């Protein structure tokens, strides 16, 4: 039985910044440490990355899962094939097949980003009564992660100017799928302010 839900949020930042922050993977396990306990990469195939990720549900319940994240440039991320790790450990993913989809698009009227999060949970009939509980947990974790990202984005906007993606584009900065990011957004470096954190510290 499939339960689907969607969360749509307007984010006060440019699309290039929102996607840059998403691809700036070095922050995942540090900024989001309240929900993510560990992270490693099992496999990389083109724009598909298989992650092994430790999560903290509801602040206390720790689980480890593997999943594939696939990137469709410039702003579409799909997560699927979620499995328990180790496989034999009874867990949510043995019963519920989850697919998540995140898209970042330009707001049609304003200089802002529309983030669309779609989730589909395929579950057996005996878990159907709990679908709203599962939705609540996923929404809460997603919202917390988004809020932490936005706090980071807004602080960077304050110091370096709105839309400044120069540090994401810098040759020495690692991003996931960086060639795709540079191909789509390098032209936006022109309008950004040149300040970097290192310059502000000087």
């Amino acid at each position, binding site marked *: 039985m499939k339960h689907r839900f969607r969360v749509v949020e307007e984010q006060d930042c440019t699309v290039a910044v929102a996607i840059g922050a998403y691809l*700036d*993977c*070095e*922050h995942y*396990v*540090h*900024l989001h440490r309240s929900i993510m306990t560990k*992270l*490693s*990469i099992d496999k*990389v195939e083109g724009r598909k*990355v298989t992650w092994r990720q430790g999560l903290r549900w509801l602040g206390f319940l720790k689980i480890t899962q593997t999943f594939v994240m696939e990137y469709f440039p410039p702003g579409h991320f799909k997560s699927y094939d979620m499995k328990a790790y180790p496989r034999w450990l009874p867990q949510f993913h043995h019963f519920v097949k989850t697919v998540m989809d995140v898209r970042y698009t330009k707001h049609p009227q304003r200089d802002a980003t529309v983030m669309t999060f779609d989730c589909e949970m395929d579950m057996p009939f005996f878990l159907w009564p709990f679908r709203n509980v599962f939705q609540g947990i996923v929404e809460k974790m997603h919202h917390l992660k988004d809020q932490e990202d936005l706090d*980071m984005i807004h*602080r*960077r906007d304050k*110091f*370096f100017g709105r839309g400044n993606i120069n*540090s994401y584009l*810098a*040759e*020495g*900065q*690692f*991003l*996931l*799928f*960086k*060639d795709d*990011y*540079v191909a789509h957004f390098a032209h936006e470096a022109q309008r950004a302010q040149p300040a970097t*954190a*290192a310059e*502000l*510290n*000087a």
Partner: protein
Amino acid sequence: MSSSNFYPKPIPLDGLSPTALNVRAIGDSENPVDVVVVVDGGEYRIVRDLCPHMGAPLSQGKLCTEERKLSCPWHGYEFNLASGELMHNPNDEIYGCMKTLYKSFNPAKTPKYRLRVLPYEVRGGEIHVRRGVSS
């Protein structure tokens, strides 16, 4: 010594925790500057509340007093508080396998991120933080 060589707001020694990251405002309304003060034995380590990598608030990072190490809350970069040098990027262990995949990423071009440890003088129970070059 001209007072313009120092930031306008001195830091009272009272209330500085020896085990925590103490964040204090030392600028004025036109040029607000926040710093992190770490008590290190009889000395103080004072750095901008701003990670030189991406601009994170270091006051929300993790302090290891034994190793004189400060970790950035956003990316986990570990800095030596005495010298300001970047000691370790813990993400290399996670993403090392991906760091040769992209033409647009050149690790040789990664800046040598460094905290600027601010010089200071202690007078009358207050720390006066000096502007200008790090000692």
